[in-house]
């Protein structure tokens, strides 16, 4: 009853159980983190606004993204994945969410940033409904932990509008 195999089995099982309990506790501690992120996005310029090759509207813009997400980091945080999505409604689609830019914040030191960029992913509609369209820019973030549960939330910024005419 005390062969090497039995003992190894016993030790391994105990170790894995303790490790699992520690991972659970680490993840649970993230619930006590109070979050106070700040963000704002400015559209500096609408570079062009055309129909692309399949006839759908496409727009390219230059964005100024500034944020301070350092309060999202805890000791159990591996990285924060942040992205900006344009959200709008059209007659065919109740909701459209198009990701324009994303980035990975690897640590608290990088969490306060100011980025000047054109949209990383193409802003293409399903159809051509974008002329004069009002839309929101929402900054979403996903807190990816070193272990355990992932948290996600967002800040919705309203009041953006696309040009009335193609250019």
């Amino acid at each position, binding site marked *: 009853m005390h062969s090497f195999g039995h003992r190894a089995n016993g030790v391994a099982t105990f170790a894995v159980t303790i490790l699992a309990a520690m991972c659970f506790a680490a993840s649970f501690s993230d619930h006590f983190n109070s979050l106070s992120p700040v963000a704002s996005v400015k559209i500096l310029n609408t570079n062009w606004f055309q129909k692309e090759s399949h006839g759908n509207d496409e727009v390219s813009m230059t964005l100024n993204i500034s944020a301070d997400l350092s309060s999202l980091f805890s000791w159990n945080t591996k990285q924060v994945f942040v992205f900006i999505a344009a959200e709008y409604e059209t007659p065919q689609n109740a909701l459209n*969410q198009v990701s324009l830019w994303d980035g990975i914040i690897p640590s608290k030191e990088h969490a306060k940033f100011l980025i000047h960029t054109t949209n990383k992913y193409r802003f293409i509609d399903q159809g051509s409904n974008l002329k004069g369209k009002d839309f929101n820019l929402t900054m979403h973030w996903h807190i990816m932990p070193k272990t355990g549960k992932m948290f996600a939330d967002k800040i919705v910024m309203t009041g953006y509008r696309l040009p009335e005419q193609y250019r």
Partner: protein
Amino acid sequence: MLVQIVSLGMIVTSALIIWKGLIVVTGSESPVVVVLTGSMEPGFKRGDILFLHMSKDPIRTGEIVGREIPIVHRVIKVHEHQESAEVDILTKGDNNLEDDRFLYAHGQLWLQQHHIMGRAVGFLQYVGWVTIFKVCLFFLNTPIDLEIKQWLPFIVHSDRCTGLTGHI
């Protein structure tokens, strides 16, 4: 001898009960998946395990979703239709330069909700390496009192032992 066979049978069926129970509780056909490629680095590395959970809530951008082939990537575009409330979804691995259209079926531009098996809600590092090395235990030489968790990786990957390598 008979005792050993019965004990083995009980362990296997217990593991199966836990696995099927997980499927019911999470609503996902594959509630635990192993990350096979580096397309979601640095967030998820090869050998991590992910817990998937499926609900009827419509898919939204940012969610990390898994499909029948075990590809767990992030949703970057969502178009939800007015009348039918169906959603068109586009996914992309964080670490890939391109979105996943090259992985979809020929001519397919979007995924729909029914293609999605679950959203990633939690993860554990390194635990999945056992399955990547394709350790499928069939016969045991030691007495049959192994813990159920040692059988679980086998059952998770009994249909994936053919191994999906490459840059998915």
